[in-house]
């Protein structure tokens, strides 16, 4: 079969290209919602973990009840991080779909939540690393001027953290897009599954699978390009 015939068979006949476009749409939907959820969870968990680490000693002396409460919240965050980072994302997705959200038929929503919860753990650790990497002198200088912990975070620490972690966060986003390719496990027709369905119909693997790979590559290359631009911008403002 010539390449042209293969192309027509795989993409044109029966409008099979729609498997790819609809799949891509699902892939992007899951990625965007998962990313939003992941960033929100990540920020909350990172703030809890770093605030606990930095204030536990003085809090222990000043406010016993507040300290105990904080200790429990921090422990929950630690357990979350351990479980999420210690188990494969496919298993997490299956558990989310077949156990936790067994009542729901909306696979896209369940996958968005599952990937969001997964991503949140990694985002949290990226942010925590960023906060911890800021010189302790920055906290001291801000405190010495009279800023409290929250003000110090908002005016002094977070703007610096964003600069240092933005490239890593974009990398996490790139990883997330590729990770969503396992969504087919729970019956979602994402980009990967769409290509695979075509392969199943036409019994010709070459074209659909390479098309899928190419589409991922284009998206990731675009994001990498954006990442490069962002990094250059950030470096410029330092000078």
């Amino acid at each position, binding site marked *: 079969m010539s390449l042209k015939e293969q192309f027509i068979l795989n993409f044109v006949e029966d409008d099979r290209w729609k498997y790819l476009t609809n799949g891509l749409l699902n892939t992007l939907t899951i990625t965007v919602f998962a990313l939003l959820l992941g960033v929100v969870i990540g920020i909350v968990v990172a703030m809890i973990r770093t605030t606990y680490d930095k204030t536990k000693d*003085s809090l222990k*002396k*000043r406010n016993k009840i507040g300290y105990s409460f904080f200790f429990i919240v921090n422990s929950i965050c630690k357990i979350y991080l351990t479980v999420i980072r210690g188990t494969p994302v496919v298993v997490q997705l299956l558990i989310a779909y077949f156990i936790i959200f067994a009542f729901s038929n909306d696979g896209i929503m369940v996958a968005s939540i599952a990937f969001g919860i997964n991503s949140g753990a990694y985002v949290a650790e990226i942010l925590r690393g960023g906060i911890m990497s800021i*010189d302790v*002198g*920055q906290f*001291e*200088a*801000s*405190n*010495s*001027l*009279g*800023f*409290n912990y929250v*003000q110090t975070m908002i*005016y*002094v620490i977070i*703007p*610096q953290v964003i*600069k240092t972690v933005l490239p890593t966060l974009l990398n996490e986003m790139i990883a997330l897009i590729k990770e969503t390719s396992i969504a087919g496990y729970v019956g979602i027709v994402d980009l990967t599954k769409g290509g695979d369905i075509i392969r199943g119909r036409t019994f010709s693997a070459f074209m659909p699978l390479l098309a899928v790979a190419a589409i991922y590559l284009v998206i990731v290359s675009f994001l990498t390009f954006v990442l490069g631009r962002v990094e250059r911008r950030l470096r410029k*403002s*330092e*000078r």
Partner: protein
Amino acid sequence: MSDNVIIKTENLCKFYGEKIHALENVNVEIKKGEVVVVIGPSGSGKSTFLRSLNMIEPATSGKVIFDGVDIMSAKVNINLHRQRMGMVFQHFNLFPHMTILRNMTIAPMKLLKQSKAEAETKAMELLKRVGLDDRAGAYPSQLSGGQKQRVAIVRALCMNPDVMLFDEPTSALDPEMVGEVLSVMKQLAEEGMTMVVVTHEMGFAKEVSNRILFMDEGKILEDGSPEQIFNNPQNERTKDFLRKVL
């Protein structure tokens, strides 16, 4: 306690674990307008003492009474008191993501609710005094060490503090930049600012201070005027230390 005592410590102690005593029962009174220089060998607790005065590194026990209030007490909002105690650090600790002007105006604007114009006028005035008004729009990374430290001093002054604390302000500087920072500090002392300075600059101690504390092993071993300490030290360890550094 007389009215013009601004900072008083009572039995100030700091322990790291069980054994290491960074501060041992430090009792000091610092009066308004005094320029107190704290000297001593490294590891003697002088930085720990200074940093306990505004609770950047809180002591383990004892009292720090600032303007009549025990700021070690759990009921006190330490941030309000810190607004009145400026601090200058060995490593400057300017905020690298802000311009020099923003470094100086952010605290007065956010904490003292000054308007932008008001804060900037005051900041520019101070920058002019230290000869850096042309660098207001620069970022800290564009300045030399001596310039950074001068900015750090005026940043603290923007809050109109009652006391200025200096934690080895010239130790991280190249030798040729030490002078420019010390002259700013000297000017500040002449204007009547209450200052507590931890330093190894004996020349500054002799010339500018009106009181010297000699610390070793977490204790204040000698407390007197510069003439007394430099010309007629009483304690053996003070004599030994001064022999080595002078």
